């Protein structure tokens, strides 16, 4: 991953474009595979799929290194992939297998890889906001140049932790980027219903920090805005609220009938507005990648996802003793 500051899409290298496109495809195909396998009843528990929001996770994480931290949500698969978590380990975790990133003890809602700076998907709405502040505080106290990114949904912006966390990051000028994935829904309630505010980025004015709303379906828009925010954070200029307007292709959870969605909007989200199709168009138009090169990347991602599924299906369940291991470091 790159470390240069204030990277913008117009300067994007072919190598970077390939990385970004691959990650977006990995998320899409990973989630599509989980969707299909879950429907067959082969994945236990709850899953919340990220498909449709790829431009946000990838556009932001493209500016991060393994030393930077991210906090995530219950819809965390996309953040994990964008932050470099291993696909086999992720899929096996969702299958509840011993080879999973968390030895099968976390599952879809708690996939984590601290070695990659991925501080965990989180089953509690709003929980990741203060956690990101803590990672930012560590960076400040230890005087590293690292940043912390908090991915959160529009639903979490109504939670007290949002305001507590943004306020603290602001008064302490911490290197934290609050990335709101405004997908228009908190569970089955619309943003318009649940939030009195009509913009989450506007809270930035109140807390006297930088804030911006971008088209979260446009990779280049997210990439540019995140590049600026990360550069500011690394320079010690404090936090940013980056609101990315997006849409989730699937339901809140798998099995959700999605009766609250507008059919036309849903159709547009997966066609004209689709983040991957739009980025493909951008890459072709600007002659960064050809149609053949894109097809090649799609195929190699498909092979990787197929391999992740095979790996997971063939992996053993955790040993019985794992029920009570890892409760404490020492006890």
């Amino acid at each position, binding site marked *: 991953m790159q470390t240069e500051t204030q990277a913008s899409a117009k300067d994007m290298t072919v190598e970077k474009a390939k990385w970004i496109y691959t990650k977006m495809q990995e998320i899409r195909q990973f989630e599509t595979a989980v969707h299909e396998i879950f429907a067959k009843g082969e994945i236990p528990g709850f899953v919340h799929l990220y498909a449709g929001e790829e431009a946000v996770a990838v556009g932001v994480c493209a500016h991060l290194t393994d030393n930077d931290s991210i906090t995530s949500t219950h819809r965390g698969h996309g953040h994990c992939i964008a932050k470099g978590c291993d696909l086999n380990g992720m899929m096996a975790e969702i299958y509840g297998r011993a080879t999973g990133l968390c030895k099968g003890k976390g599952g879809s809602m708690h996939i984590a890889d601290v070695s990659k700076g991925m501080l965990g998907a989180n089953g509690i709405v709003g929980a990741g906001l*203060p956690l990101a*502040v803590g990672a930012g505080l*560590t960076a400040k106290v230890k005087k590293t140049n690292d940043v912390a990114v908090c991915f959160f949904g529009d639903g979490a912006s109504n939670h007290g932790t949002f305001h507590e966390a943004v306020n603290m990051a602001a008064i302490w000028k911490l290197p934290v980027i609050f990335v709101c994935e405004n997908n228009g829904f908190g569970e089955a309630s619309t943003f318009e219903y649940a939030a009195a505010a009509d913009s989450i980025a506007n809270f930035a004015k109140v807390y006297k920090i930088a804030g911006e709303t971008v088209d979260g379906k446009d990779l280049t828009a997210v990439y540019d805005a995140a590049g600026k925010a990360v550069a500011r954070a690394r320079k010690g200029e404090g936090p940013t609220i980056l609101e990315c307007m997006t849409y989730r292709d699937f339901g809140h959870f798998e099995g959700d009938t999605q009766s609250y969605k507008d059919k036309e909007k849903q159709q547009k989200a997966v066609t004209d507005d689709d983040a991957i199709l739009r980025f493909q168009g951008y890459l072709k138009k600007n002659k960064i990648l050809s149609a053949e090169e894109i097809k090649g990347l799609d195929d190699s991602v498909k092979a990787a996802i197929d391999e992740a599924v095979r790996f997971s299906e063939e992996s053993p369940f955790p040993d019985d003793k794992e029920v009570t291991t890892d409760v404490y470091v020492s006890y």
Partner: protein
Amino acid sequence: MAVKMSYSEAINDAIRVAMRKDDDVILIGEDVAGGAEVDHLQDQGAWGGVFGVTKGIVEEFGRDRVIDTPIAESGYMGAAVSAAATGLRPISELMFNDFIGSCLDEVMNQAAKFHYMFGGKAKVPLTIRTIDGAGFNAAAQHSQSLYALFTHIPGIKVVIPSNPYDMKGLLLSAIFDDDPVVVFEDKTLYGMKGEVGEGFYTIPFGKAEIKRAGNDLTIVGLGKQVYTALKAADKLAKKGFEAEVIDPRTLSPLDEDTIINSVKKTGRLIIVDEAYPRCSAATDIAAIVGDKAFDYLDAPIKRVTAPHAPVPFSPPLEKLYMPTPEKIIDAFSVMVGDKVFSAV
């Protein structure tokens, strides 16, 4: 070399010793220094905590490591959890344990679960210092003893020091422990003086202390109730009954062996706890002993606790609310039979 200091000074000393030893130790909480960015204070602390326990620490270590937070428990507790997970050893002060209602998620669902949920690959070396205890006329929202709530949650360690020596050693153990630990400071003990070791020392978790030996009755006293137990033991001794008084010092882990071995010897157990009785530490200890040492019991286990009621404000009511030596003696007389008890 031992020095005489108060329970409060022992806490202050432990924090300084830890912060000198390791730059990753930070102190974070509401007004742990106080007066941040007030020009005329020139970075001196205003309070050092609401009871002055952490006074002077900001002057030694500066505001980069002694961090006053907004009154936003979810926010700063969550930040402390993640600061721990990303490389610091925060000491996070929850001013009163009653305020856990504002940040239980950060402790219960985040700190306690990272190590397990992430397959042992994350650790949260976080110490939460918090004030508990009734007897201060602080009423229902500033007087509870909520250690059972934390003991219930796997992944958290719970420490209830009853004296200055234990406080310093247990707090230092907590700070350098790799798991989240909640250390309870009974506000009524802050002024208590005692011998404390100089410099760095630790007391291991899960090791109870037998405060008084005896063969007729085991009394487990939690936190400051160990003193109520000792007073009752003195009174019972005058009647010819020798009670063994145990201070468990930590509730999670709990030194079951010391308690059970004592009960095997005495055949009788009273647990003294000023917390609520339902689903409490006292009830838990009673269940453990009932389960593991039933055959050694000569009488039903008795619990001398607060009633199932919030802590009242009015001083006479609060006095009624608390365990007393007399309540312990009454419980014992029921256990041995009034006739036996009054015959001696």
